[in-house]
């Protein structure tokens, strides 16, 4: 069997600050016809760069310095621009991470779909429209005859991702590069997209390179897995072999991340006053009701995880607690005392007691303020410390979050890595010496190893400082790791709540069940088994729609 793609000793460099620095150091890769190769690694591992290089393409400011990329006997590095134009779209296609950003919002889906086949002379426009509808049907999009005639903003994220896969398939390419196609989607949506991508790749016997950072996802999709670390190849093996017996230390550590779990804490004795008590809260944005009668308690030293899909009202609940969105009815109590609904009417001490850590550390830290001032401001504002005292306190806090104070005090946020920025966000919250912290998706933008570090830090701080957390997340692995109690939300309502160990054992509310069963597991047969068990119509959005 001859290889479809053959990359030999490929070196790629990127330009930064007037010099070329390496991104890929001598990677090799072979892909046979009809085979799916999974590329995994943390951000900055060079997996996207390598994926694009398999198309003979490099982003601006990136160059291939050495090596060869052969596609079906054609050398893509030396091929002429005209030759590449002929191949791309027709025989090699690309599916990007963000379908919403990749579709042109001004044109209908089907018009964008037919562009490729008509341009390459594969089909006439009317044939291509018919073919598009057939592909939409195979990808199990609802209303395949009509959905193509909508604009990108009129369909959901998961549907858009499948429409993009259909577009990539439009010329029946030999190779498709999938660049994190499900990363931006909810778990229940992701499973649907995964199932349809896998089916269609099998049906047309297309070879694919599947780029992701999620091991469980790649286990379902790939025949072989290749692990990358900072541009170096760590190891490559058959999916089953790789999952069962990883050879390298780094791979083992990636596998082990999901094992972190805190011991269950004893139940809170009845009658204790909760730190935060949300009582029958309803809220609305203008006339649109987004929260319906939400109630739950958070006790001292405990973590309550609020779980749900995007749009389920998790973050809105947090906005009600902080007072940014005064509820239309209901009450929020802190230590048994009712809190004013609007943050503007709360006093300094009430504001101090409830702090917040944000999802995107990039936007949560002022890019023009040094770390010392970011943490120092709440110290000065709430504690009234100035000068040397303030500096000493900031240094203490930096030690607390495991960053050397001397080195980081005068830096700007842009000089820090993602995980370090998130730690600064934690230190800023701690500086107020609060009893209660809202963590809004704090680990979802981070690589798994880094996220694990953050979770461990939060767990330690909770034990040391008797903190209470409200932990908003859509990732059930995170819930397993850190939560004491779980609140499941859907469409602004609480569907189910209770201690963690109860939540992970049946019986469940059907929605909780769907949510739990949609989380990919490391078992490569998981998706197949699930589809056999539930049937294609009972997963993802289709199942959610049935429920309501």
């Amino acid at each position, binding site marked *: 069997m001859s290889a479809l793609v053959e990359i030999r000793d490929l070196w790629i460099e990127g330009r930064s600050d007037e010099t070329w620095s390496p991104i890929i150091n001598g990677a090799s890769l072979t892909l046979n016809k009809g085979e799916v190769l999974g590329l995994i690694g943390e951000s900055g591992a060079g997996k996207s760069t390598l994926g694009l290089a398999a198309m003979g393409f490099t982003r601006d400011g990136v160059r291939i310095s050495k090596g060869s990329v052969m596609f079906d006997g054609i050398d893509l590095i030396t091929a002429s621009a005209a030759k590449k134009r002929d191949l791309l779209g027709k025989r090699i296609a690309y599916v990007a991470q963000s379908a919403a950003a990749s579709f042109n919002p001004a044109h209908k889906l089907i018009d964008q779909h037919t562009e490729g086949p008509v341009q390459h002379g594969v089909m006439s426009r009317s044939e291509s429209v018919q073919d598009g509808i057939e592909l939409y049907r195979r990808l199990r999009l609802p209303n395949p005859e009509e959905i193509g005639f909508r604009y990108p903003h009129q369909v959901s994220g998961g549907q858009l991702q499948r429409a993009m896969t259909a577009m990539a398939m439009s010329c029946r390419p030999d190779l498709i590069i999938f660049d994190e196609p499900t990363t931006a989607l909810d778990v229940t949506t992701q499973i649907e997209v995964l199932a349809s991508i896998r089916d269609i790749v099998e049906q047309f016997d297309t070879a694919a390179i599947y780029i992701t950072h999620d091991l469980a996802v790649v286990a379902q999709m790939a025949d072989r897995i290749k692990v990358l670390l900072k541009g170096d190849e760590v190891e490559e093996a058959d999916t089953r072999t790789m999952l069962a017996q990883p050879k390298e230390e780094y791979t083992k550590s990636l596998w082990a991340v999901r094992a972190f779990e805190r011991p269950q804490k004893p139940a809170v004795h009845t009658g204790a006053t909760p730190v935060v008590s949300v009582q029958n809260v309803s809220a609305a944005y203008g006339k649109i009701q987004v929260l319906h009668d939400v109630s739950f308690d958070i006790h001292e030293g405990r973590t309550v995880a609020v779980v749900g899909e995007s749009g389920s009202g998790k973050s809105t609940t947090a906005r009600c607690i902080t*007072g940014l969105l005064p509820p239309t009815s209901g009450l929020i109590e802190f230590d048994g005392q009712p809190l004013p609904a609007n943050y503007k009417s*709360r006093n300094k001490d009430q504001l101090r007691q409830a702090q917040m850590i944000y999802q995107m550390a990039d936007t949560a830290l002022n890019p023009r303020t040094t770390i010392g001032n970011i943490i120092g401001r709440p110290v000065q504002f709430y504690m009234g410390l100035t000068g040397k005292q303030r500096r000493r306190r900031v240094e203490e806090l930096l030690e607390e979050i495991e960053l050397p104070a001397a080195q980081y005090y005068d830096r700007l946020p842009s000089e820090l890595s993602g995980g370090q920025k998130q730690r600064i966000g934690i230190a800023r919250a701690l500086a107020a010496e609060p009893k209660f912290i809202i963590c809004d998706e704090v680990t979802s933008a981070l690589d798994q190893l880094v996220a694990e570090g953050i979770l461990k830090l939060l767990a330690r701080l909770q034990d040391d400082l008797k903190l209470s957390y409200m932990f908003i997340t859509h990732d059930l692995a995170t819930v397993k790791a850190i939560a004491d109690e779980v609140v499941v939300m859907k469409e602004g309502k609480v569907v189910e709540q209770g201690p963690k160990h109860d939540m992970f054992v049946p019986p469940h509310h059907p929605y909780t069940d769907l949510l739990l069963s949609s989380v990919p597991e490391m078992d490569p047969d998981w998706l197949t088994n699930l589809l056999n068990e539930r049937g294609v119509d009972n997963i993802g959005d289709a199942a959610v729609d049935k429920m309501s």
Partner: protein
Amino acid sequence: MSTLLTLALILVAVAAGGWVLRFAGQKASGNAPTFRDMPFAVAFGYVFGASLLIFSIWYFFQPTQTDAGVPNAGVVFFRWAVQFFIVSAIAAFLFRALGRTVGTKGSRKLFRQMPLTASFGVLVVILYAFTAVFAAWLAPHGQEEIFTKVNVLPGGNAATGGDPLHPLGTDQIGRDLLSRLIYGAQNTVGIAFVTTCLAFFLGGSLGFLAATLQGWLDQILSRAVDVLMAIPSLIFALLLMTIASAWAGSERWLLTVYMIIIIAVIDSTRVFRLARAVGLNIVVMDYIEAAKLRGEGLGYLIFKEILPNATAPLLAEFGLRFCFVFLTIASLSFLGVGIQPPLADWGTMVRDSAQFINFAAFSPLTAALPLLAAGAIALLTVGVNFVVDWMLHRSSGLKE
């Protein structure tokens, strides 16, 4: 008709040349990627550029006088332009080289990354600022001093009608042009700077306030600005200046103060729009939410959280706005309601000597009289814009 035909012929020749270039390149280089993947438009561009360059060099070396003794004005002006361009480029290059060797570590790094255009802009701005500040020491004569000789030509060469006492000549009532140009820097640039600062103070603070508070205050301010912006700015300024001149009466200096206020208010509407737009993008950031939830006051939010993140686009706008204000003042002076005589001002100087441009075909030196003041305006505008372009590129937040 024949001109059109010639142009068409030249175009066809250049197009053919482009094709030949690409074909020859492909043959000679053994089909290297540079020539192989070259679109025809690029090849056309290369040949067109090369032809233009060759024509310029040929034109530059044409005689400055025809056989009949009449000056060949086109060639004269073209030579002046090219010489000025070369001198500027060399000056900018030397200035950048100087900046790369002396100064602090930070400033040296700044100069290393600077393109030649930006270093030229910085040089121009520094020279103008220096001239404006030290005008009284630099100028050989006073700005109001009238000499007996009038209409002395620039160059200081007695054979062509010049006088070494007045290197740039005199205007039609006998005032030294060099001195007036130098004082003009002080008056025009100084007043423009003050006006721009005032416009930024007004527009910037109101814009940030509107972005932070939003609601009805934002509505009122924004609609008021819309109304002011709906009136053509120069006409509006002229109208207000007419009213102001009635108020000022015989107090001429008061008119200048009114002018500063009027232009500042009119220009602050543009600043308001920018500050509000930039501010709105910043107030949705999580760090602003964090500061609000901390209980910070309005002053802290605006000056410590928003302003530091808005400086890059605002600074770039400052440069552009300065040019516009400067040109508005020059236009008002040209129309006679701006800076009042006998104060030297470039706009007034252009107006007073505008008729000399008619002599361009017979005596290029005479035509240089209005061109000197106009050139001073143009040079500063170009220089400031170079600096602004560079700053926009660096901040990358607001390109184009």
